[in-house]
């Protein structure tokens, strides 16, 4: 198992796409944090919940980066037929899957923590550059980081799942973006409580700010709690991975 982990880590760190995606999303995140959330912040919005409100933007951007890197880790195996080496070098296909999962979880953890710290610092920097002073923030940083990391990890595991099942890079990318952004939007029109039943809508609740500042204090905006949203998503994710694992063990290598 240790050598499988080492090999998967080398795979992630030795391709150009990992660095291209990481740098692109860090630049995007940095720009949004510094300019959008900080420098161009409207004075009325600069309150004790300002940083808490940035969680959705930061969570979404870091999660897409992690999911793409996870997707490519598996999709490249099929695209370039390196899966034959991967499977013959290991004595268990389950070990291969677990190694990929653990490496992606580790990579996404480091990336999302770094990206979030960088984004918070740049938001504060942007506010300072515009001459605004940041009031004391009503924010639990541990929960803030925990939510972003969970959101990014959960999305990354979906990014790894799709190519393992469909074995085609283009189809995997399309599915990963169409399902959450288009298919669930359409299903939301027919499902009564989409946040309760649809996986990605439920997952979004994890990083939705729990309250929005109003004239008389916080106004709850989440249709379901972040915990409930996270659990709903995990049920889908576990079921999806059980099916994927079953097929991964039984199908021909490629």
């Amino acid at each position, binding site marked *: 198992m240790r*050598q*499988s982990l*080492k*090999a998967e880590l*080398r*795979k992630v760190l*030795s*391709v*150009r*796409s990992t660095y291209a995606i990481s740098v692109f999303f860090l630049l995007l995140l940095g720009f949004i944090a510094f300019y959008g959330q900080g420098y161009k912040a409207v004075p009325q919005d600069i309150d004790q919940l300002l940083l808490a409100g940035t969680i959705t933007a930061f969570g979404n951007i870091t999660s897409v980066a992690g999911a793409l890197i996870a997707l490519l880790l598996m999709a*490249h195996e099929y695209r*370039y*037929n*390196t899966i*034959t*080496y*991967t*499977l*013959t*070098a*290991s*004595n*268990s296909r389950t070990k291969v899957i677990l190694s990929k999962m653990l490496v992606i979880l580790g990579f996404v953890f480091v990336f999302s923590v770094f990206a979030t710290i960088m984004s918070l610092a740049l938001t504060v920097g942007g506010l300072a550059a515009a001459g605004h002073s940041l009031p004391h923030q009503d924010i639990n940083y541990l929960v803030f980081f925990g939510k972003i990391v969970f959101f990014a990890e959960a999305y990354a595991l979906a990014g790894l799942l799709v190519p393992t099942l469909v074995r085609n890079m283009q189809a995997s990318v399309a599915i990963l973006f169409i399902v959450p952004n288009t298919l669930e939007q359409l299903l939301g029109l027919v499902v009564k409580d989409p946040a309760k039943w649809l996986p990605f809508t439920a997952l979004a609740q994890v990083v939705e700010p729990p309250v929005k500042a109003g004239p008389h204090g916080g106004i709850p905006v989440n249709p379901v709690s972040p915990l409930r949203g996270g659990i709903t998503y995990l049920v889908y994710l576990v079921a999806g991975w059980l099916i994927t694992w079953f097929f991964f063990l*039984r*199908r*021909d*290598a*490629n």
Partner: protein
Amino acid sequence: MIKARNLSKTYHSRNPRDWTSKKAVDDLSFQVETGKVTGFLGPNGAGKSTTMRLMLGLDNGQGKTTYDDKPLKSYANPSRTVGILLEAKAFHPTRTARNHLKVLAAAGNIPSKRVDEVLDIVGLTDVAKQKPGKFSLGMSQRLGIAAAILGEPKYLILDEPANGLDPEGIAWLREFLKDYAKPGRGVFVSSHLLSEMSQMADNVVVIGKGKLIADTSIDKLLAGSSTSVFVRVSSTESMVKALDKAGLKFQKEGRGLVVASVKTDEIGKLAHAAELTVLELTQHSASLEQAFLELTEGTEEFQAQTKGERK
């Protein structure tokens, strides 16, 4: 020794109008001995690549393959037991050649310094830091061979490793594989280059339409195949009469006759009995190509038409 027993693989059609299934490999059993190079021959579509994938557990099918009486999965580091080359271009095009091998080394718990050794063996040291996406087929094959020998495995399973290699590369590969097998290791290699195979392999496994046709040594295969005799005598006409009388098949070639499936002794005696002076008498031994064509006749999956057959 690698023992493949009762390997079978059936592909089912996904066409709803045609639910037929096709046996790509049909109850195939053979073995790959240590200390020898075993060639794997068969026409296109005979099931050679599928057989190799079944042996490695890459495809799900029936039967079992053992390596020194143990399945591959029972080894902690399978890449130290068997090295593979199934496809020349199986690498990420933007991961450098050295990094490609380092990934494989990590997966097999092989020291990284071995990467430079194998790059040197296959002659790719100068391009180790290059991305292999633009490698020629020959360079890709060399990288694939480097990957196969990375863990100094006891067995090599190579699918068409000579494809794309230049003549110097083919000669190098031939000697390399023979040397690799010598110290008690086994090499199982498929190739369409039959002349190369006849110089390289000690044993051959021949399949057609997924079924075993022959599992024997090259010498026995050639000995069992038809031989012909070229004869030139003082009177071709009299010789033709003698051959007809003896019921032998022959055809004219230049100023002589080529007689199928006989030895020189027989023809010499016939000529003597017909009171003819023998001017030339030569035994033509079968080449591996002839032997292969004879063995696989009628088992070709895809066959080109000759000029006369075209409408």
